[in-house]
């Protein structure tokens, strides 16, 4: 039974993971995919089934890819807090955990991230349903690609004023969705 489930999982996601790995490591891509599935098996106890499985597998795949690239010396090693080059840091430079870090637990952060994700998603879905593709493109370039207003305007063939309006409108909508006492009490009174 579990073997069938494992086979189904591989059949469903192997192709897209392979294509992702091939763009960076054409010769080792199959090993990366295999490591990804093994990593998924190891991490199953921590997997939140409310999360998108595909996104979760791609996140594991990215880590496996990075490990291999680093092992091959292709990816520069980045020093992490405390002078370590691996592991997960839990403090800012200086070795002293920040008060905010101690107070704002992982749980709280998780709630905040989910609230933000939901707020953005509502607006994106709304625009997609209405066919407001220009607004969506505009906001995506501004916030995901980090482009400046004038560059976005030039690229999309709209005025800078329109870009500013879309940006303002989007922020207001997200801000409004976040004003909930259980998520951001600081924004709610």
């Amino acid at each position, binding site marked *: 039974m*579990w073997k069938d489930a494992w086979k189904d999982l591989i059949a469903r996601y*192997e192709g897209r993971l392979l294509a992702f790995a091939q763009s960076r490591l054409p010769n080792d891509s199959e090993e990366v995919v295999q490591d990804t599935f093994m990593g998924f098996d190891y991490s199953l106890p921590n997997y939140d089934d409310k999360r998108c499985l595909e996104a979760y597998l791609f996140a594991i795949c990215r880590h496996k890819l990075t490990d291999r690239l680093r092992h091959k010396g292709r990816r520069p090693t980045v020093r992490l807090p405390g002078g370590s080059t691996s592991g997960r*840091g839990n403090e800012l430079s200086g070795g002293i955990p920040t008060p905010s870090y101690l107070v*704002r637990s992982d749980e709280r952060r998780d709630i905040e991230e989910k609230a*933000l994700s939901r707020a953005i998603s509502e607006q994106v879905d709304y625009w997609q349903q209405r066919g407001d593709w220009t607004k969506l493109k505009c906001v995506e370039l501004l916030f995901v690609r980090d482009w400046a207003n004038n560059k976005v305007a030039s690229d999309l063939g709209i005025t800078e004023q329109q870009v500013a309006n879309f940006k303002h409108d989007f922020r207001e909508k997200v801000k409004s969705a976040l004003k909930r006492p259980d998520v951001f009490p600081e924004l709610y009174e």
Partner: protein
Amino acid sequence: MATREPCRREIQRCYRSRDYEMYFWLLWVFPSGEKHLNTCSHTAVDCMANESDQKFPTHFSEDKLATPGDSMPLNPTQSDLERYQDEDLPAEEMTQIEKLLRDNPKLMAKLERLNEQRNAGVHSFAAIWRRDRLSCPDREQLRSYLRRLGAISDKHRSYIEFHLEKIGCQICKANLADLERQRDESTEDSAVRRQRIFQSSVGYLQK
């Protein structure tokens, strides 16, 4: 209930108490904060990572990252560096940033500070958007895009192309490449490959 606009002092308090998450939240959601951020020459990375600076930031270091919108990859923005860390840029841009990092200690220092923020759990708007794939087309839409089916409108098709090429979403590109391979590759080839992965992993599973 009335919404309370935080004054500059409240933003300042968040910064001084190193409550960086709330500090940037306030800057992001309130126009007064945005105005401050726009007139300030600090980068977000400097602002959050420079612990020795106990004053409210009024100026920024000169070695700031690129102005948003500068061409990649000679001048990667903070968003580009985040995407580099997440293996979420096209392969050519990834390679170019790797080279830049080897040659440019300042850029490497920026990346290290960015890592510090992320490890400390600071929210990144773009990272949440990308991680949760909030604007990605689903697989059926990609299939329609690939086969030029009439299930999606021309404007929708144009958006998918934009998402793939201009945003450069690597997961959607991988999905599209997979769909193309399914179309072109023989069923036998893919079955053999899947069987190989299955056989090499099934023995290690934690049942």
